[in-house]
């Protein structure tokens, strides 16, 4: 019983840490442009866990995280969901190729994917609200996502080997 609980906890870790971090980015820290942290954290987390632990970051989980992103970020409903599902799909497809390479290439690939996701969110927001939203925020989000990834990846990689590792249960 304890072992099954332990396994379940380890299995739920990626989704839980993602949601927790997303809620934390909205806490009143008083950082300027703090809102751009939310999509950056969501993107980095979905990318990392889809690459290294796809069993725990399944499409329904990604869907739920995307919905949370839309609600928290006041984006038109569905845009964050779509962007994260696409990021998840790309991560799944490139798992085998990227897995053979080092961290630098994974990071570079993420930077490209994050820029694509930011562009998609921006375009979908513009179409759904029928307004040309200034692209500055999109660029900032893409750059911030790429810049934040190494820090989050170190944290996640540690968890991946220790507390989130089902083989250690």
């Amino acid at each position, binding site marked *: 019983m304890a072992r099954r609980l332990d396994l379940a906890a380890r299995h739920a870790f990626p989704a839980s840490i993602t949601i927790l971090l997303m*809620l934390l980015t909205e806490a009143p820290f008083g950082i300027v442009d703090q809102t751009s942290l939310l999509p950056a954290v969501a993107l980095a987390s979905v990318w990392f866990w889809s690459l290294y632990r796809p069993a725990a970051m399944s499409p329904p989980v990604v*869907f739920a995280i995307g919905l949370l992103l839309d609600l928290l970020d006041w*984006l038109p409903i569905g845009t964050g969901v779509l962007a994260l599902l696409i990021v998840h799909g790309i991560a799944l497809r490139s798992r085998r190729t990227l897995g053979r390479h080092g961290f630098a290439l994974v990071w570079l690939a993420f930077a490209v994917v994050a820029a694509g996701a930011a562009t998609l969110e921006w375009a979908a927001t513009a179409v759904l609200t029928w307004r040309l939203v200034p692209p500055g925020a999109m660029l900032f989000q893409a750059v911030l996502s790429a810049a934040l990834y190494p820090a989050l990846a170190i944290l996640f990689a540690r968890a991946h080997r220790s507390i989130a590792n089902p083989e250690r249960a």
Partner: protein
Amino acid sequence: MIHLSIPARQALAKLTLPVLVAASFGLMLLGKADAVLADRARIAFADAMAPIYAVLAAPLGNLRAGIANTAGLWDLRATNAHLRTQNEELRRWQSVALALDAENRRLKAELHWIPDPAPTYVTARVVADAGGVYAKAVLLSVGPHHGIKRGEIALDARGLVGRVTEVGARSARVLLITDLNSRIPVVLEGSGAHAIMVGTNGPWPRLLYWPEGSPPREGEHVVTGAETGTFPANLPVGTVHYTSAHVAEVEPAALLDRLEIVRIFDYGLNGIVPPEAAKPLPDWHG
């Protein structure tokens, strides 16, 4: 639990992603068709989170104040000297203001002026940014039975902050004057000319549509105009500033990027309050 054969299960697993991608498009359509539902979901979520953020706000605020205090210790002497001279100056202005206030009251009494009704207000703490990447808004934590209504006006200690666009049971959302959807009738205090202040999502909103012949002057004070019935007249908004490209902008008087506490005023105005979810984004342009 339904037991499926391994190939069937694999096929099902492969189908999940495309089905969910299709579902996300469905969500977009749903959100577009029924914006009320989406807004209700958001504000219900904000209601759940607001008390948690409100609890976090106090210690985080203390931490920030502590850091600012420590940083302030470095230039204590210079700050002190600066504050002393400023205090002297403000005392002079205070005596001027008191004299003017007395004169104003006397003149109003002579004219049998009908005083404006004193507005009621609620003070609330700003607990989170509720704008996201493409909007400028803040979330307020308010107690139950707060009585805040949509369209009411938010001010901080210095000037106009924005208007209430969504109200929940324990939270309210204020769209800032810098938001892309914000259109505010203003009056240039020097010339008395009317203009519209348009948000750009940047820190400084733009001035548009002033009458020909009375362009806004650099440093001129900007106050709200009462012409649409959405704002009372003469709330401080900011000062005019020209960019290097000669675009007239308003430097907001309110500290919009460091909002901690705002007051929500009920002026009893119901000019143009947007119908709930007439547009996908909560907006209030006239």
